């Protein structure tokens, strides 16, 4: 091999020849067969999975309804029990909202607690007794997610 002049026009000609040479080349037939076989496999699998997944979805929906009904029933029972067991503080004067507002119809629990009056002072409520060391009863209203929504202070 020796060096010789190769011009741009030669390159254009050579590229043109190569283009013509390549023009009739196609993927062999077995590639098409493989691609279409992959299509058939994928769609056969989807057809098999569809009834199974529909059954699964139906079962999940049914389970969710049963659980929701059960929880609703349990919530109502708890509310009834709590109402019966915990009588509200005789003189409820202050309601402190400490979290998200209570939604209408949201099942809540009321938990009676005895806390130092100083705790209420920290929340901006002055104890009627004025004695920071004294203890006062409060009702903590807890939402169904277990987070306190409000504190009712009975003075």
């Amino acid at each position: 091999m020796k060096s010789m002049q190769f011009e741009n026009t030669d390159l254009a000609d050579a590229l043109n020849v190569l283009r013509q040479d390549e023009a009739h080349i196609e993927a062999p037939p077995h590639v098409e067969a493989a691609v279409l076989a992959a299509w058939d496999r994928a769609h056969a699998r989807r057809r098999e999975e569809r009834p199974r997944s529909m059954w699964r979805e139906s079962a999940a929906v049914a389970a969710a309804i049963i659980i929701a009904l059960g929880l609703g029933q349990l919530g109502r029972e708890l509310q009834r029990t709590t109402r019966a067991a915990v009588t509200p503080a005789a003189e409820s004067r202050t309601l402190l909202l400490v979290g998200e507002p209570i939604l209408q119809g949201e099942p809540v629990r009321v938990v009676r607690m005895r806390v130092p009056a100083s705790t209420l002072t920290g929340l901006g409520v002055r104890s009627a007794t004025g004695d920071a060391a004294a203890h006062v009863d409060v009702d903590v209203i807890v939402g169904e997610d277990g987070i306190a929504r409000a504190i009712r202070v009975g003075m």
Partner: protein
Amino acid sequence: MEDATSAAADDPDDADLMRRAAHGDRDAFAALYRRHQARVYRFARLMTGSSTAAEDIVQEVFLVVMRDAARYDPARAALTSYLYGVARHQTRRRRARDRQFVAFDGRRPDSSEPVADDDASATLERRQTLQQLRRAILSLPRRYREVVVLCDLQGVSYSDAATAMGCAIGTVRSRLHRARHLLTQKMGRTAPSHEDHPGLTERCA
């Protein structure tokens, strides 16, 4: 220019076939394959220098089409640009996997090709030039090889090449200019002299 295999007026267009394929229409998918497999195969073959690699890449490209047909948006790119983009990505992946491509594997149907020119030396010269050009193209850096294969050998417009390569048209132009310059240099270095082939010398004399 693009292949004459592009859709005829009464054929469903690519976007329609893609929509139907996305809804599980096997015939639409098969029509898409038959319409576009050749250009994807040629691109992959010229990029890799291997028919085997090109076959694998064609399969991978159409598996991607099968999986993502619903996500194809004809407003963003013509299907050919989209397919070249996927093929380009698959070629890179293949390269990363194989690290090194094998040379052209001699599965060219040259021997069965009708030879128009009776002059054996002319045929030999043509074959040698093509072989040298293929080697020269394969030896180009990938970004230059892509643009030569797309624009000079596949007849893709600068605009569609830019879409497939994810770059500006100006970048396509400058890369193509640089690629042709590199190819001219490479071909000049490797071009056979007439002394190496007495037949050619005689013919030229």
